[in-house]
């Protein structure tokens, strides 16, 4: 499935929810299905810099596709990173590098987009693209 198709799928899923509590409960549930990074990799090196909760991220290249694993000690960031992993995993480095994600805004989680919000999505996406960039060369 393309990145755009996966985004559309998520937008559709989130459209079912009327209020923010349902939306966040769903987000938290999604976090539980995140492919987890190995415990041994939960180190400084794999940490996405943010001051309030910790998010670790790792990526592997398998047959030309990038696969991400991640984890967080907090549930909301974990839910958010799980959405990103779902959208960007199993794609080629080229696709990942050039993609402009739009689903976050569409599902009403825009507040996480602020570049100054600690553990913002922005730094997660940046880190994921950096992995893709490294695999490209």
């Amino acid at each position, binding site marked *: 499935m393309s990145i755009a198709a996966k985004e559309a799928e998520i937008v559709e899923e989130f459209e079912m929810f009327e209020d*923010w*509590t349902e939306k*966040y*409960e769903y987000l*938290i549930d999604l976090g539980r299905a995140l492919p987890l990074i190995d415990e041994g990799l939960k180190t400084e090196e794999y940490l996405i810099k943010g*001051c*309030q*909760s*910790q998010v670790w991220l790792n990526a592997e290249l398998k047959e030309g596709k990038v696969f991400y694993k991640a984890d967080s*000690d*907090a*549930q*909301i*960031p974990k839910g958010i990173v799980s959405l990103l992993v779902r959208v960007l995993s199993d794609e080629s480095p080229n696709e990942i590098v050039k993609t402009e994600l739009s689903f976050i805004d569409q599902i009403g989680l825009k507040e996480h987009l602020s570049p100054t919000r*600690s*553990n913002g999505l922005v730094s997660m996406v940046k880190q994921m693209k950096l992995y893709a960039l490294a695999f490209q060369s």
Partner: protein
Amino acid sequence: METIEEKAKQIFDVHAIRADFPILSATVNGKPLVYFDNGATSQKPKLVIDSIVNYYSNTNSNIHRGVHHLSQLATDAYEVARSKVSHFINAKSSSEIVFTKGTTEAINLVAQTWGRNYLKPGDEIVVTAMEHHANIVPWQMVCEQTGAVLKVIPMDLNGELILEEAEKIIGLRTRMLAMMHVSNALGTINPVEKVMEMARKVGALILLDGAQAVPHFKVDVQALDCDFYVFSSHKMFGPSGVGILYGKERILAEIPPYQGGGDMIKTVTFEKTTYNDAPFKFEAGTPNIEGGIALGAAIDYINEMNHDEVLNYENSLLHYGTEALLNIDGVRIIGQAVQKVPVISFSIDGLHPYDVGFILDKQGIAVRTGHHCAQPVMDFFKVPGTIRASFAFYNTIEEIDSMISAIHLAKKMLK
């Protein structure tokens, strides 16, 4: 028997006070704002906001320079504010009051003027285990520069200092006792008199970080008899970017200036410059003039209040909030000192403070989550951070109830 709620309502007309603070009627995420982050910064009464507008509308001019009318007005207003600060903490004179950017700068000033010039290798600076980073890092920096050593008075699991240990740590090599009057992360009101007594016996200087004290109770620097007392305007209903360094006149006269520039000098030639007297020798450059003046307005506002009533009311908020939180399964209060200001730091079993803070924010409730610039405190209690509700006299029992139901929802969502 009267409930705490009934008592709180009787002693204080909180709704009249709330009307003085425009921001308190704001909504956040469609809910009425509940502002429980007063430990980070307080909200400002209209009197303070108006004084800034008034300054720029009618007075704006540089101070201590011109002979012209506006410059005189601005200088007078700024110096009147200095004298209000002096009365507010009962200093002997206005010349003991140095305007700074805040508590942080005030501590750095003492570290880099007194510390850098007088500390020798092996000299000791004593702080406590609960300090804000602002009262740790400046001392570590001056230790690196001079070879002095930082010593730490430990605390116990209630968040109270262990005085027997303080006795052992404060000794003949102690040159400075730099400690917080009140803890921002735990709410503890420290028994400063007892610790200061130990420091005085060995001839050490004393700096008290009063950033979290002045917003809650009356401070008298002469009664305390400390050498330095520092605090920030923005935590006591004044504007940000202004803070105060109180220093005893004799000591301020002795220690060298901080930064060089205009206002801090008497005469300048390329061969030799002579410095102005305290407090001006510590105030290089154009200061935050409107900020100083508005701090004066904040002091006027506080002075209008009945301090006993405020104290009683804030205590009832503290007790009501503590009990209500403890009634929630899994809540652990970090900081259970006997003497506390209305600051409640807590964690909830199995939940990350960030998630809780986020879900509270969604419901219009502003609390602080994280390490509160006191990482050693978090390490001591073995938590990644806490959720902190810090109250001011304009908060209400109803707002605490809202927070409690918001926490129940957070618990349900985060399971």
